[in-house]
């Protein structure tokens, strides 16, 4: 699974993009967060306030219960502030 982090999530986690072997028990975007948080302090810091975080699966905005599988591209980021 290709996982991307943007803005301050990227800064807290220390990497913008990683290719991860995610176990089959991780079936949703929300479960992916739980699994990431267990990987280390940077992830725990980044995902501390989930109300401030959005997720996109395959470059479309998604809900926390959206399905994620091995071939997907999943991105985490704060609410957008362009324009």
């Amino acid at each position, binding site marked *: 699974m290709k996982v991307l982090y*943007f*803005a301050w999530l*990227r800064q807290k986690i220390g990497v913008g993009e990683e290719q991860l072997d995610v176990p089959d028990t991780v079936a949703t975007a929300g479960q992916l967060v739980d699994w990431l948080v267990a990987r280390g302090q940077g992830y725990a810091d980044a995902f501390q306030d989930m109300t401030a975080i959005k997720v*996109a699966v395959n*470059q479309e905005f998604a809900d926390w219960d959206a399905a994620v599988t091995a071939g997907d591209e999943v*991105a985490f980021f704060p*609410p*957008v*502030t*362009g324009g």
Partner: protein
Amino acid sequence: MAVRVQREDFNIGRELDALTEGNPGIGGLCSFTGLVRDIHGDAGVSAMTLEHYPGMTEKMLLEIEAEANQRWPLEQTLIIHRYGRLLPGDRIVLVAAASAHREAAFEACHFLIDWLKTKAPFWKVEEDRSGEENWVQARASDDSAAERWNK
């Protein structure tokens, strides 16, 4: 219809002239340009950097543009959004809509920027005069501006 995500500046006049050139079916052209302000709240801003999500950005901008073209009878639409480091006074974004009719041009242009503000994956980080970096917070007023088009 065109969407561009680029580091370089753009020329407003050249872009707008190209939209109407050779199409005398256009009666009205509305454009909005967003620029970097030097004041953001209390702290002076000396520069900002725009980060984006390559791939998803273009996809979302195309979706927003397609939605505008579905809602209004438009002859032309344009979205250009820059990324990278920008200084106060620099242009950030240009959206434009051209139509036979003035109301359609205005509404579509307004819609483009309102939806872009809440749906296009860009993030701004500001440097204040002391060198501190601050990620710009999303604003509730942008959400409500986008919401008004949900009907």
